[in-house]
């Protein structure tokens, strides 16, 4: 009838694809149900994984902006009795043990001064803060253009920012000029902005560190260094120990409660999201398994026949597992994309900020869905072991 064909597995690829396509579309209703289950599972697991990844990112970046996690203060038993200490060199603050640690430091000097608006004799005692860093919600003091103040003065004023409360008490507004007095020293400053923070800063006036040092006649002195170190609790503790060695006259105080709370929050969120993801994937696998059990019952005779005409268990299993993997891939690709979009909405609802799409989540979710689909095809794998004679006799 025909000449014998030689064994060449590569030439069988078109038929393999043809068979898999037929298997996939043998029952479109069931195909839709399985795809729906896999897509839903992939969507929820991708959403949770994206939230988990995003939460970690947020906790290590955005929480850091809440403030310092290490304070460097003058020792209370130290030589200075005015609550100040000599400013350390920048090199002394550098994290020498762990170069991966990123730090941001702000140096402050507090002083008391009498303040009054220009052309007014009504003065009030206020806290002036010499600030070396960036004020919350404002540009760095050093970077402001003096022309912004549009001053009506013969002398060049320094720049300052006033808290909302103190500005109200002095009846001062942006671009006004303030006079500050401390003992015999005097300083004029141009008010560049009114600060509203809702805390103690609203009652303070902020100038550059060097200006306050001049006003208070405490050159080179500072009151506190606020350091924000990015890292876990152990890294921060190690860095604090390093600072204690380098700054023996200062008290280095890690704000442990914040670091530990940060770790605990992330740990709890991460655990919850991981458990939820696992649960969702297990449920998805069970759904797929239920559908595959139905398919296995339908294909029992087909498998018996395939084995009767020379199909090997492995060859038949390859067809079924490829079918399952393709279903998982399609469900994963659709579901994971939907899930990442879902996580952005969930992030908005939970954190008030839309979760950023983390690209690593997409391949992970798709891979997990493919694995779930293959594992869910377990009933089909059992089919490969059936004996044709048993099937044809109707005993199985």
């Amino acid at each position, binding site marked *: *009838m*025909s000449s*014998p*064909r*030689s*064994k*060449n597995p590569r*030439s*069988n690829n*078109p*038929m*393999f694809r*043809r*068979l898999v396509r*037929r*298997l996939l*579309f*043998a029952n479109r209703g069931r195909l839709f149900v399985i795809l729906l289950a896999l897509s839903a599972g992939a969507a929820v697991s991708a959403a949770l994984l994206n939230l988990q990844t995003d939460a970690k990112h947020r906790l290590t970046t955005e929480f850091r902006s809440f403030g310092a996690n290490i304070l460097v203060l003058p020792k209370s038993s130290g030589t200075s009795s005015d609550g100040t200490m000599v400013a350390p060199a920048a090199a002394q603050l550098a994290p020498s043990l762990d170069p991966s640690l990123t730090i941001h430091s702000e140096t402050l000097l507090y002083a008391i001064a009498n303040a009054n608006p220009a052309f007014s004799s009504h003065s009030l005692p206020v806290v002036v803060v010499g600030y070396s860093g960036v004020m919350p919600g404002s540009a760095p003091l050093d970077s402001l253009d003096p022309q912004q103040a549009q001053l009506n003065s013969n002398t060049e004023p320094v720049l300052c920012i006033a808290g909302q409360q103190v500005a109200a008490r002095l009846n001062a507004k942006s671009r006004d000029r303030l006079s500050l007095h401390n003992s015999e020293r005097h300083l004029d400053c141009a008010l560049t902005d009114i600060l509203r923070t809702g805390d103690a800063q609203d009652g303070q006036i902020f100038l550059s560190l060097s200006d306050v040092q001049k006003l208070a006649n405490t050159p080179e002195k500072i009151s506190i260094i606020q350091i924000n170190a990015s890292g876990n609790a152990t890294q921060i503790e190690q860095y604090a120990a390093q600072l204690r060695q380098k700054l023996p006259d200062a008290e280095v105080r890690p704000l442990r409660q914040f670091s530990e709370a940060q770790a605990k929050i992330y740990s709890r969120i991460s655990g919850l999201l991981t458990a939820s993801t696992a649960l969702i994937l297990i449920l998805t696998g069970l759904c797929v398994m239920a559908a595959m059990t139905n398919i296995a019952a339908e294909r029992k*005779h*087909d498998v*018996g*026949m*395939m*084995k*009767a*005409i*020379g*199909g*090997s*268990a492995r*060859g038949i299993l390859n067809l079924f597992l490829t079918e399952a993997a393709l279903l998982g891939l399609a469900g994963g690709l659709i579901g994971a994309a939907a899930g990442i979009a879902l996580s952005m909405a969930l992030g908005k609802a939970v954190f008030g900020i839309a979760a950023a799409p983390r690209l690593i989540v997409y391949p992970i979710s798709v891979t997990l869905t493919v694995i779930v689909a293959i594992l869910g095809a377990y009933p089909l794998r059992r089919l490969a072991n059936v*004996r*044709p*004679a048993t099937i*044809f*006799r109707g005993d199985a």
Partner: protein
Amino acid sequence: MTTQPLVSPSVSLAPAPQGQPQVLLENLVKEYGSLRALGGVSFNILPGEWIALMGPSGSGKTTLINILGGLDTATSGRIVVNGQDITRLNESELVRYRAERIGFVFQQFHLVPYLTALENVMLAQYFHSVTDESQAVEALKRVGLGDRLDHLPANLSGGEQQRVAIARALINQPKLILADEPTGNLDEANEEIVINIFRELHKSSHTILMVTHDVDIARNASRRIELTHGHLTMDTTCNFLEAPKLCPHGKPFPSSGCCTSLDSKPCEP
């Protein structure tokens, strides 16, 4: 129905079976728990023979054909096919044996419902070695289904489905065709078509072992074997192309019209 001949037109008669046995069964026993389906069956099959395997239901016919086809295993005994003892083959060797040596035709057709007629034939090629669509198309044309290539089994009649199954069984040029009541589910017209195909196959020297309950169909075979309760009770040889020979007492051989009885009680008085 118009079918092309399955064999070369120059071959008009079945060659007389001769030479070494193609199949040798020795004391074949099959037990299902306490039930003995085959109780020590022995016979040979010569190349080119068409054997009608007969007997009442439960006599072990399908069990015998399943074991011979490598679908089931014997409890004891030996089956040698083309010099190879298939009772000693492991699972993967049995898979190759089924793919390369055996062509199955079932009463229930056993076509894959979501594959077209053409794909059902190509499926056997796929498991055997590589697919060749043109050969599969040719095979279907030869059984008169050239215009049904893309039909799903649900859209084919019983006779057409059985012809697809025959094309599938023959596509890999098997040495032995095992047919389990191939006309059992067919009407008279389709039965005739299918039997004609088997006649063609027999003419082209295919070895056929066909389970049947139908004496008329068995008459087409060159040899008839009967099983009763798992035992061989009759083994006769005949040539359906010749007129029935009479037994010595002048009566034809019961039912079959065959001429020579190989067992000890061939003729009725």
